[in-house]
């Protein structure tokens, strides 16, 4: 029997919970023996290192990993590859990206760009003097955070300055950035704080849907929920439902189950034939796709309907 | 011994790991007497007192109060039965006020609904009673009844502890080395207090290493040695010298004094 490991940043974020469910189902289907590991919190790289080592000791054939520290994890990944394991980065590319044998991920820059474009098109002329709040992930600015933020700015027409750094922009439309830790609690508090800075906020970019839900509660508390456009990334079922109910205007849907099941298949294939997966043509990684989900499509921005989104959502 | 003892114990055993602090000890306190308990360091005097006052549960043996067998699960139960104790280590709460300490575990609640429903304490009443009790016992050199006990000198603290016992004891008052840390003047005040309590009809158990004090106030002396009562003597019939000799094992107790 082929052994495989899935190592996620945490096992408390629904995104990773679903990823795990997808991987587990696929593994059972094609006869892969899957073990799953996670860090205690986002940023806990040591637990991920220990997990990689366990996989080596366990004689697994391959590892799927969403790295917490994309640079820091590289030596451990190298150790696994040296021991003959196939290592695939899911969701979050390593730095450099070729540290893994393959990367199955959302194009996060594109995910950000889509919601940025949508927000710009939806506001129309008002976009010129919009007031935008950014609800980011953590103070450490992980790659997904940077890519989505900068992608959004690109789509919305904000000069990103250094594309690798959040916060160096000087566009007057930016009210501010605050961190959410990617959950409802942080989303609400960050939104409240930014509203204090400027109660005229009318666009909110959120790092993920739990943060968006928290932001919505803060807006609702001051009766502003219907004047503000919230955009987000993830496409989890609760998030898509929130799009349907107008809580979130549009969200960029990712496909973690696909990442996971493709990853499991790739490991199985590698074990059977020794063949490694190839990246999408023209990209450095295998793009698992991203779709903008909204029932208010905007001209020039490709999107799918909420019903389609519901059919593809992940939990 | 035709009069029934007010507080008695038979065959008390208390082990601490490998040490046997009480080794089938007996005890009898008669109504309205001052009974002194003497013995070497580590003889088990404090352990005996703790067993009688509910602070420790004996491994074996029985305790009777006014002829009825009792079993105290905590000092609170013993207090409920009218036994007040001043422990060797005082047992006052340093940060609480004198009044709070005197009423700890027997607080007075306000009358009426406020008291029964909201369980509000009646601070005024407790303060008044505390002040009265201390004055009655001649201990009112204390300026302020709301003072935290930790601001009092050792002697004053001892006074508060003794006053608490004397004020609330309805059947028995037990004092474990109440004068050990006290000066000459302060010790004298505590002895007078004891005689005063006795005059009010209450029996007292006094543990002390101070032989002159013991022979001055005690009606009977319980001699404790190696975890048991080995003799009960009358200070009028025996010399201090002999009592000490029995206590330290230098002399066998006279047949008549030998414990049952």
């Amino acid at each position: 029997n082929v052994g495989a490991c899935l190592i996620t940043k945490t096992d408390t974020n629904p995104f990773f919970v679903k990823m795990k469910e997808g991987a587990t189902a696929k593994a059972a289907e094609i006869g892969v023996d899957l073990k799953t590991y996670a860090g205690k919190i986002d940023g806990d790289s040591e637990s991920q290192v220990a997990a990689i080592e366990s996989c080596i000791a366990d004689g697994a054939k391959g590892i799927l990993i969403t790295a917490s520290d994309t640079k820091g994890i590289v030596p451990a990944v190298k150790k696994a590859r040296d021991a003959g394991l196939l290592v695939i980065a899911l969701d979050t590319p390593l730095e450099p990206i070729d540290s893994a044998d393959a990367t199955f991920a959302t194009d996060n820059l594109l995910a950000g760009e889509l919601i940025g474009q949508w927000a710009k098109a939806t506001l129309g002329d008002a976009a010129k003097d919009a007031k935008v709040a950014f609800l980011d992930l953590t103070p450490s600015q992980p790659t997904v955070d940077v890519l989505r933020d900068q992608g959004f700015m690109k789509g919305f027409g904000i000069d990103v300055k250094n594309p690798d750094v959040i916060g160096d922009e000087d566009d007057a439309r930016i009210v501010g950035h605050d961190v959410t830790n990617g959950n409802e609690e942080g989303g609400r508090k960050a939104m409240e704080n930014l509203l204090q800075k400027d109660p005229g906020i009318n666009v909110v970019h959120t790092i993920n849907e739990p943060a968006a839900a928290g932001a919505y509660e803060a807006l609702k508390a001051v009766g502003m929920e219907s004047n503000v456009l919230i955009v987000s990334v993830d496409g989890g079922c609760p998030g898509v439902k929130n799009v349907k109910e107008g809580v979130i205007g549009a969200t960029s849907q990712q496909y973690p189950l696909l990442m996971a099941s493709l990853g499991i298949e790739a490991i199985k294939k590698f074990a059977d034939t020794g063949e490694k997966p190839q990246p999408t043509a023209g990209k450095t990684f295998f793009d698992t796709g991203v779709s903008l989900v909204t029932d208010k499509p905007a001209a020039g921005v490709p999107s799918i309907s909420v019903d389609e989104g519901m059919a593809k959502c992940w939990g | 011994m035709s009069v029934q003892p007010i507080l008695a114990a038979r065959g008390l055993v208390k082990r601490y790991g490998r040490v046997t602090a009480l080794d089938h000890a007996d005890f009898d306190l008669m109504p309205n007497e001052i009974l002194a308990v003497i013995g070497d360091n580590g003889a088990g005097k404090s352990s005996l007192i703790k067993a009688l006052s509910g602070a420790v549960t004996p491994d074996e043996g029985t305790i009777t109060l006014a002829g009825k067998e009792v079993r105290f699960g905590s000092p609170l139960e013993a207090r409920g039965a009218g036994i007040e104790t001043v422990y060797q280590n005082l047992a006052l709460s340093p940060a609480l006020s004198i009044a709070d300490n005197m009423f700890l575990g027997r607080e007075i609640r306000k009358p009426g609904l406020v008291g029964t429903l909201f369980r509000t304490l009646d601070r005024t009443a407790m303060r008044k009673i505390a002040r009265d009790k201390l004055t009655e016992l001649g201990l009112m050199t204390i300026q302020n009844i709301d003072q935290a006990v930790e601001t009092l000198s050792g002697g004053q603290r001892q006074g508060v502890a003794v006053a608490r016992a004397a004020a609330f004891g309805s059947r028995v008052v037990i004092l474990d080395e109440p004068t050990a840390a006290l000066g000459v003047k302060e010790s004298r005040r505590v002895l007078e207090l004891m005689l005063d309590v006795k005059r009010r009809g209450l029996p007292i158990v006094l543990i002390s290493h101070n032989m002159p004090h013991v022979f001055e106030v005690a009606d009977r002396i319980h001699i404790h040695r190696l975890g048991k009562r080995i003799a009960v003597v009358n200070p009028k019939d025996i010399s201090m010298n002999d009592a000490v000799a029995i206590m330290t094992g230098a002399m066998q107790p006279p047949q008549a004094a030998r414990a049952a």
Partner: protein
Amino acid sequence: MSGVQDFEKSLARSDNTVASFEPPRSPLKAFQHKLHGSPAAVPLIVLVLSLGLFAVLVGGKFFTAFSLTLILQQVAIVGIVGVAQTLVILTAGIDLSVGAIMVLSSVVMGAGVFRLGLPPELAVALGLVVGLACGVLNGLLIAKMKLPPFIVTLGTWQIILATNFLYSANETVRAQDIEQTAPLLQFFGQSFRIGGAVFTFGVVAMVLLVLVMWYVLNHTAWGRHLYAVGDDPDAAELSGVQVDKLLVTVYGLSGLICAFAGWALIGRLGSVSPTAGQFANIESITAVVIGGISLFGGRGSILGMMFGALIVGVFSLGLRLVGTDPQWTYLLIGVLIIGAVAIDQWIRKVST
């Protein structure tokens, strides 16, 4: 009877002067002494000063009824958990499991409605019972097995949190679903306005809870016993306090209050989120410490805890509005923590 010893004959004539106390030497000393007597005064002063500081630094945006009541909303959960933590710390204990109990209870309330199909009232009751049970478990381990509170709650923290994640399978219950099916769960999120000030029921609950517990701690026998146990448990036991029973009650009550905080948390977040409240233990301990309550037990006022929570809230919002990196907030809170006890120590030292 050998009577009074010879050398004591002269005692009757002895002097009754007591060693004299020097009067406080300066207005500063007198002030210190005053502060020593009212343990919530220092955090209150610090709170007022920090409000002033940010009013100057940030200006109008900060010093509005709206902003100030927003701070109240942001500290309501920590304030409620802080009440639980205060009770425990006053007994010289510590409760690291508060956040875990809170979030497990809120998850149970959500699951009660959406998984077990209970009516919301019952689901809330079930959540409260779960919190109480966790607290009682802590209490029994501490009081009956005599294990140190730090270790017991370090263990139950991990146990309860893991149970929470295993049980909830990390599923968030959406705000909109709760609103439709079980609005009772969001009860403490409701708000009312008085002018520009916005008060949620959660804020009202926090303030009321603090006031009620202040009353209980200072004006009932149970409260006095709690202080006595924190002060010196052996002395309290010998003075007639049932220490074990009291400790079980305190930890049980702490668990119940945390469950209540879990309910209020649903109101604040709208949704039920199993990942919430991860720092509630550190945050509540911070509020208690800045509030001038001694970690050694027996000393301090629950009002101080509330002021402590508000100080942290003022700094958090104030620094955000100034626009500093969030890390500066953590740094400053660290300084505040040490500063608060240093001041406390100084007052205690000079005024005793």
